[in-house]
């Protein structure tokens, strides 16, 4: 479902040598996979996530999403794909303040033109186990709960792929386990989950680990332990 061919992305800061954030990256992720992209900070994994999430364009290379060339889409088409096909989960949750859990979950539905937005957002909150917190303001929830609201927001439009950028980076171990379990559950229901992390332990939960270093794929292997555990 996701195919990257020779992606290159270079950042040029003034008075500094150019940084190759992506250096001819090629990889393929199939529908329903649970993949971890593992790398230290500065390895280019965030750039990879931004390009895969259609928030950023590669300088060169091809990106096929569900068989369609995504790197040539117009700005409006990109927005549409982000809205329907991709769900984002961020390290800092990015919930809107002074806005309830329910309203936060409804954000993507504003751009989706669906009449049943109340039912959908209710169902998404129920799926993450926060049905009874829907009228709480974001800042009234714990970190783990906030991230669950963010996940509910990511799945409310039923995307085929979930991009989670350090989703447990700000959480304690209990919440981390909850979030990982939640992502696994969603994956088990068929959603492709891509977990971007620098944390070996988190990456270990995935069936496949892609290691990134200096903008290039260093290793791409099945995680035997987790894969075996799931099967």
């Amino acid at each position, binding site marked *: 479902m996701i195919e990257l061919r020779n992606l290159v992305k270079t950042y040029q800061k003034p008075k500094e040598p150019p940084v190759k954030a992506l250096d001819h990256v090629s990889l393929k992720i199939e529908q329903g996979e649970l993949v971890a992209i593992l790398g230290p900070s500065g390895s280019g994994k965030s750039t990879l996530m*931004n390009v895969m*999430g259609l*928030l*950023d364009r590669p300088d060169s290379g091809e990106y096929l999403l569900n068989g369609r060339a995504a790197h040539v889409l117009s*700005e*409006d088409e990109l*927005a*549409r794909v*982000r*809205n*329907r096909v991709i769900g*984002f989960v*961020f390290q800092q949750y*990015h919930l*809107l303040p*002074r*806005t309830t859990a329910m*309203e936060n979950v*409804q*954000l*993507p*539905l*504003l*751009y*989706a*033109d*669906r009449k049943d*937005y109340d039912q959908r957002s209710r169902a998404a909150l129920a799926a993450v186990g926060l049905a009874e917190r829907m009228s709480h303001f974001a800042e009234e929830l714990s970190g783990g709960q906030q991230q669950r609201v963010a996940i509910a*927001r990511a799945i409310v*439009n039923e995307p085929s792929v979930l991009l989670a950028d350090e989703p447990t980076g700000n959480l304690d171990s209990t919440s981390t386990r909850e979030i990982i379990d939640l992502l696994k559950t969603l994956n088990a229901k068929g959603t492709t989950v891509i977990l971007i992390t620098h944390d070996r332990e988190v990456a270990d939960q995935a069936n496949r680990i892609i290691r990134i270093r200096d903008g290039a794929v260093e290793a791409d292997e099945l995680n035997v332990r987790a894969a075996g555990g799931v099967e």
Partner: protein
Amino acid sequence: MNLSLLFKTIARRLARFKLKTIFMGLGITVAVLATVLLQTALMSVENTFASFVNRNYPANGLVLMTGSGFMGGATRANLEISDVETVVSSLGIKQWDPVVMVGPRDIKQEGNIALVNVAGYSEQAEVVRSRSAQEGEFFTAEEVRSRAHVALIGSTTARDLFPGGSPVGASIFIDNVPFTVKGVLETTGVDPHGGDQDNAIWIPYTTLMESLVKTTQLSGATLIIDDPSRRDEIQKEVTQILRERHQIGEGQQDDFSIVTPVSMAQLRGKMFSTWKLFIRLIAGTVFLVAAIVILSIMQISIKGRTAEIGLRKALGARPRDLQIQIVLEVLLVALIASLAGLVLAKIGSGFLASMLGEKFGVKEASPPVLVMLAAVGLAMLTGLVGGLWPARRAARLNPVQALK
């Protein structure tokens, strides 16, 4: 975009960030308030002025005044009742009313003394000058013919001379000449110079000319024309008759003047056009300031909402969607703020009217609906001008940068 969700989102945001909403709208509220209030005040003054003019210079009338110059008096007074009678009989004018003004006179009534403007009119004044008696009766043709000692007094005069009682039937002394009060004149307020028109005494002009000042000279006369389209023609004929009777030679100046409603309307237009321009300038300025206020508050607001805008983009907002959302937000503020301005203007014009009414006898004009609509329209335009640029900036934000 999902419109019902969009409006909910905007309404919630405005309600939750009340202070920002209020500050953003304040400029527009003040602008609408100032514009509507100034316009109402101007209209009230103009209406009052117009009703004064219409009473003194009726639309279908010609006002003849002794002496040259606009308000008369530049030359020796020279207008006799026979002049006017000749004019009306040769032109077939049926309705007309002469006037003799003698200025303030001492009025005595038992212990009370007052200084009151006295003028003489005919019984036709009631119709020609649209002022009847609000109490008692107007004097009759017979009373004018027989030089009866009857008087109509203004409501201010009535209050001064007869505190607490009805003046009708009582007697007063004008320069020690006794008169019987027949009625109280309809209250008309203050003239454009601030003179109280209700501090007046009207008596038959015949009586005035014979017993009070012993003159044959009129101050003027108002003639009613049946066919206003012939006004210019009639004005020429009147001029010709009077010049002949007064034996004014070729090239010599008239010793009378004729004022028409047309010339009064021109004067009025001149007087008020400056004020109208002034109000437009003020309105333009306050709305410009309101636009700048909105622009700067929105700019700051957008800066503070960078993460939100980045997030919305990540979640599927197109640049256009963000623009629409932000512009609608500002327009909604502009609408609410301008409605608040209208409500305040309604309250304010009540206060203003009572103040102007007390000082200048100005009556409150009905709300200037067109100006109100224009003010709301201008407010929306202001919102659009103030909101568009920040909205475009927001729409261009790079989501990767914005989410950092």
